[in-house]
């Protein structure tokens, strides 16, 4: 009797959700485009230096800002180096650094943020205030200070950028976990005597994946730009190594002459950003979360 009466025409549409669960990660056009773009850049990062016609530091001609087709395939930069080769070399550096940085900042930020929310009390207070203090510094100045003090090797740059980014992730992760940790199912786990790790990983993390994934897409882009900014100040990627962000900064003066050598690496960054965010959107759709597009509606 109870079953017949509890049926709700809207909720019990037969198998609607179960059917979806089976083919959960079906590729949509959005997913296809995203994976194609990012896959292309991954291939470039892996094999780019092998097919590059020149080394990243070779000076091809004494013409700075040569237009596309005249010297090299995509012209030359402010020192007369081959833009095409430098973009191929730069893919590895740019994507590698950004990926490692973002992964690091997410691991640190979300772990600490979740812990602050779950433990609460003084632990949360101390962690949050320390985080606020770090956030209070303009990130570029803080980065400058730390890197100047510790030396500008790539591991230190990556770590510094990751820690600074992690403060933003901490904020988000803590706020998300606070929302989830007041849910009764978390209390059920607490009443069962479950430890902090179990509650964090099994009860809270799965319920915060959608916003965290969306944040990942944005943070990835910021990491590229942040590293480029540090490089520009002479503290990040050291010349003559190629990095897209560095290339944009180096060649920005050429924009006023109509040179494309700053626009091409910028376009590469843009396409990578779009690709990553398309994948994030596709993922959010698959797990039934809100995509950025839905949030705007």
């Amino acid at each position, binding site marked *: *009797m*109870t079953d017949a*009466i*509890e*049926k*709700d*025409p*809207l*909720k*019990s*549409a037969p198998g*609607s*959700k*179960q059917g*979806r*669960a089976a083919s959960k990660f079906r590729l949509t056009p959005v997913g296809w485009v995203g994976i194609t773009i990012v896959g292309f850049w991954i291939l470039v990062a892996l094999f780019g230096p092998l097919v590059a016609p020149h080394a990243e530091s070779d000076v091809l001609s004494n013409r700075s800002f040569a237009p596309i087709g005249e010297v090299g395939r995509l012209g030359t930069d402010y020192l007369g180096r081959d833009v095409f080769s430098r973009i191929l070399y730069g893919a590895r550096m740019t994507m590698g650094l950004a990926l490692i940085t973002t992964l690091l900042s997410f691991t640190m930020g979300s772990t600490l943020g979740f812990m602050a929310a779950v433990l609460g*009390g003084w632990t949360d207070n101390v962690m949050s205030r320390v985080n606020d203090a770090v956030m209070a510094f303009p990130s570029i100045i803080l980065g400058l200070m730390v890197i100047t003090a510790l030396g500008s090797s790539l591991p230190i740059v990556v770590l510094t950028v990751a820690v600074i980014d992690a403060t933003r992730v901490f904020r988000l992760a803590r706020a998300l976990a606070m929302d989830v940790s007041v*849910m*009764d*199912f978390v*209390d*059920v786990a*607490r*009443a*069962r*005597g*479950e*430890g902090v790790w179990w509650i964090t990983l*099994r*009860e809270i993390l*799965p*319920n915060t994946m959608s916003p965290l994934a969306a944040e990942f897409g944005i943070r990835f882009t910021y990491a590229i730009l942040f590293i480029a900014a540090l490089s520009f100040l002479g503290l990040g990627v050291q010349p003559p190594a190629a990095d897209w962000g560095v290339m944009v900064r180096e060649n920005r003066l050429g924009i006023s002459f109509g040179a494309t050598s700053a626009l091409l690496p910028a376009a590469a960054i843009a396409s990578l950003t779009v690709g990553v965010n398309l994948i994030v959107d596709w993922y959010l759709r698959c797990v039934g979360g809100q995509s950025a597009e839905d949030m705007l509606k």
Partner: protein
Amino acid sequence: MNALLDIKDLWVEGRPPGGYYVPIVKGISLSVNPGEVLAIIGESGSGKTTTALAALGYARPGCRIASGEINLGDTEVTALTHEQRRDLRGNQVAYVAQSAAAAFNPALRIGDQVTESSRIHGTMPQTQAQALAADLYRRLDLPDPENIGRRYPHQVSGGQLQRLMAAMALSSQPQLLVLDEPTTALDVTTQIEVLTAFKDIIRDRNTAAIYVTHDLSVVAQVADRILVMLGGEIVEQGDTEDILHRPQHDYTKTLMAAVRPPPRMTASQDDVQAVDAAGRAQPVLEVTDLTAGYGRVLKTVVLRDVNMSVERGQVVGIIGESGCGKSTLARVMAGLLPQMTGTVLHNGVALAPAARNRAKDDLRRMQIVFQMPDVALNPTHRVRDLLGRPLQYFLGLNGDARDKRISELLEMVELPADFASRFPAELSGGQKQRVNLARALGPEPDIILCDEVTSALDTVVGAAIIKLLKELESRLGIANVFISHDLSTVASFADRIVVLYAGKVVEQGSTLDVLSPPFHPYTNLLLSSVPELRTGWLEDVMQTREAISGMTGQVKLTDVGCPFVNRCPLAIKGVCDTEPPPKRAPSPGFEIHCHRDVSDLDTTRAVH
């Protein structure tokens, strides 16, 4: 007389996300005359709210009015444009929703929100609208009618807010009022005030009303006619008296059967004696001198000096109005909220205040079931994982042994075994609550704490859960602390009852003792506030002094004197407001905390 609202062959369709439109309301026809109250009853999913909203020309997101005629006076609502309908809603029809707290903007003053519709539609100058609103406040018996409009929503009580929402709806002088379960979220004592206010104003204004509810006892008080819905269709309609006393359709009879009997003496003498005989053993759970509250620095004390105990296999009901500390008590027992002072004893051993410091076996033996089935189950876990984790954690079950136990548990709560692979979103409210229960039963506890487990469910579904609980309790011999604000539910199966008021125990004893004289004045108020399934009950009860004095004051948390003093018809000035009430024990295991002598309390029931 011409009907004010006339709906003919109405079809409303709804679409689940990503799915196709399915009919929710299937060809309904109804009419309402001016000054008439039509009640639509049925459980959630029966289409009663959808039908009522259609009378406003409104369909909820994901729904659409597919076909049919909705005539309001001379207007055919379905033919109107979006803007015209919106105009209609402010002026001729108005809606009162279930949760007033959610309907008010917390950042704006109440008065501005009440007069908003006349301001938006420009029907009258602001000063006139305010004067009208003040008049409405007065008629709805709101305190301080001249100034209450300057307050913010959080500065008034839940019952007052519900009446203010009625004022908001009535401010544009609508011809038709749609009330959607306006008292369901309220305590019985508050419900009386709100129902009385609604009834008076509908009569004075000659307004037509549609009253949507699943509570037949409430319907009996307000409705002229009743319409019973099931699965989007009308199964029966007729005059209130006819439906209540001579239901024709089987479903209406089921609904009538699900109405819990009035909470008077349902426990038979035999039950009580059996409990008394077994009751001398060591209690499975005991609470002594417990004080608890919230806040780290400025503590708000919610529970004061609570003493109670639960014998093996016994059901102890804890009742009281919302905010009296019932749920806090359960959280302290479960170790989710460490107490300030006092002890929680489990099988005679004092438990650590925090759950994480308690022994695993103690945790296993005491399980908690929460009120809201929607948030008590992690939406990202399948039923298999939800039920499996406690088995693995407490009993070390894995693999096939665990799967077998999960099937047993599902069978125990009358769910099919293949539900194990479902996510909570694929279950109805009642099914979720069954999974909740199964999770608590899994580790073979000797006591379960049930915190308002039926409050979020429909009457029929809730009754099925209670029936299941009763069966399991007698079969497995599990003790149960059953927390509820609904006296009828508690009375129907508790062995003992503890009455809480403002964080203090005011009366406790066997169900028989608590539900028969002598009563604590507060218990008396609660008992007389439960609606009875007969017309005219509301008018009768409003004559009693319990109801009148109960409506005057608000609950206050205090440790000076008796907390109930400002609502008590028997309060002794100079005593009750200064000294804590003494404990009186008319019989063993029965206590009343009151300054009045037991012989005084004995007679109070005879007042009306």
